């Protein structure tokens, strides 16, 4: 079990790839290698997201990204998700395009009862129709929380003194499937929309609200 966890962490880090944002490969110009992205929506909570991406041509078009998201609330630093990864366009035929997404993610969650730090990965595929000023695509992926460290508060320890802090594996995962679309506004801005549903892995219980919805604004430069 320990070796498996170590291998998975290594694989995640080596993947060093993308994130769940909307890219229209056709709207990126040669002189616009950088994208700053602002998103807001519902993704296991009302969340805001900030990201930066840079595109490269490595045999196929690639975009590497780093983004940070957090749920709304009085304390916006106790819970967050950091994602490092990228997307690579693997097929382009006419206006049709397919993209592979590989992301490693770090999540933090804290309440009065527990602090959780979780490492995971996100593998997804997007396929759709892309024009220079708009795109529409479907997406499917699997977001896995591979291992989590649990640190319990005094409240939990009072309730159950034998409760055990430490690393737990596996901790969770869900499939997601939905659509995304985008529209370019002038030379520098892209508006985007993602929406879809989530389904917990295996026979796990689904999320309270098993949906996601994300509105985004991308600035290209």
């Amino acid at each position: 079990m320990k070796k498996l966890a170590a291998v998975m962490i290594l694989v995640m880090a080596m993947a060093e790839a993308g994130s769940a944002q909307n890219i229209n490969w056709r709207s990126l110009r040669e002189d616009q290698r950088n994208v700053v992205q602002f998103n807001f929506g519902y993704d296991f909570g009302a969340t805001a997201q900030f990201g930066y991406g840079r595109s490269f041509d490595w045999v196929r078009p690639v975009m590497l990204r780093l983004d940070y998201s957090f749920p709304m609330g009085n304390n916006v630093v106790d819970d967050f998700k950091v994602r490092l990864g990228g997307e690579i366009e693997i097929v382009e035929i006419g206006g049709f395009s397919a993209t592979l997404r590989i992301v490693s993610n770090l999540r933090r969650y804290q309440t009065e009862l527990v602090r959780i730090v979780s490492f995971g990965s996100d593998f997804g595929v997007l396929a759709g129709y892309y024009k220079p000023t708009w795109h529409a695509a479907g997406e499917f992926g699997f977001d896995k929380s591979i291992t989590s460290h649990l640190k319990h508060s005094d409240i939990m320890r009072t309730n159950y003194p034998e409760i055990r802090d430490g690393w737990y594996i596996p901790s969770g995962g869900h499939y997601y499937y939905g659509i995304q679309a985008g529209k370019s506004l002038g030379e520098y801005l892209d508006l985007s929309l993602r929406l879809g549903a989530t389904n917990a892995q295996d026979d796990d219980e689904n999320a309270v609200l098993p949906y996601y919805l994300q509105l985004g604004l991308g600035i290209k430069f």
Partner: protein
Amino acid sequence: MKKSFLVLVIAALVAVTLTSCDIVEPGEPGLLVPRTVDEDNSIPSIFVNGTQLHSEAFGNPNDPMLIVLHGGPGGDYRNLLNCAKFSEDGFFVVFYDQRGSGLSRRHNKDIYTIQLFLDDLHAIINHYRQRQDQKVFLMGQSWGAMLATAYVNTRLGEVSGVVLSEPGGFTWTDTEEYMKRLRSLEVFDETSNDFVYLDQILTGNDHNELDYRAALQSAADFADGNKVGNAGPSPFWRQGAVCNAAAMEYARDHPFDFTTNLRQYTTEVLFLYSELNEAYGRVHAELVSSAYPNVQLTLISGTGHEIPYFGWDRFYPVARTYLNTIK
């Protein structure tokens, strides 16, 4: 190249750190939630109605019996243990964690019905009863008060009095309305987002995992600004997630009405509601309690929904006076 090397080094360090620690599975019994009566025989238990329940009793077994019913479904009696003090007032006080709740044995989702909870309660009474003319009183908190009323409705002549603290409703319609006020998710609220944010980190189908997740999500019950008015956390052993989900699903599919015979129950009922529960209030208390023909409706000040725990100093004298008058 340098960047890739750096990433590999960091990943290797993380991996080495992990391999030097114990990594365990969240479903392993006893790690994240306490073991239940069938997993730990040192826990006091009884066998009734085809299950094993965590149960304790205080006082003289020949005194009038006072059965304490906890909330949930899926909660436990740990935060009601103050009520053992009624044994000093001449009552034989009986506690039990309902089927699938607290430290009682777990069951799979498909067995739960309201009738099963009623049958368990009847079996508990028969288990502890010393003689047929021994009086039985029911004291219920939240769902426990609903269960007490369902029992009264089906066995009118068998209950000598009831103390009810903020039952959600005696019909599914009233209960659903209360729950909507209680559990509405608010977009910019920390507690709401904490409740749902956990779903991406912990998923599971194992009882231990689900109970643990439910325990973490119970932080919403006492977070700053909680609607039920709880001043802080109240103790519990285990949140019975499967029991809760199954009972809720059953109620949605089989809407209940526990009031069909209540007009015939003429014994005075003590009905309590709290000052600080924003989702309850006098209007809802009057609506729900009106199903009984003879009600002493009393506000317990300075507390929220968990009246017997946070409002014990005010609850106890009111409940004792009521019980002593009909004992």
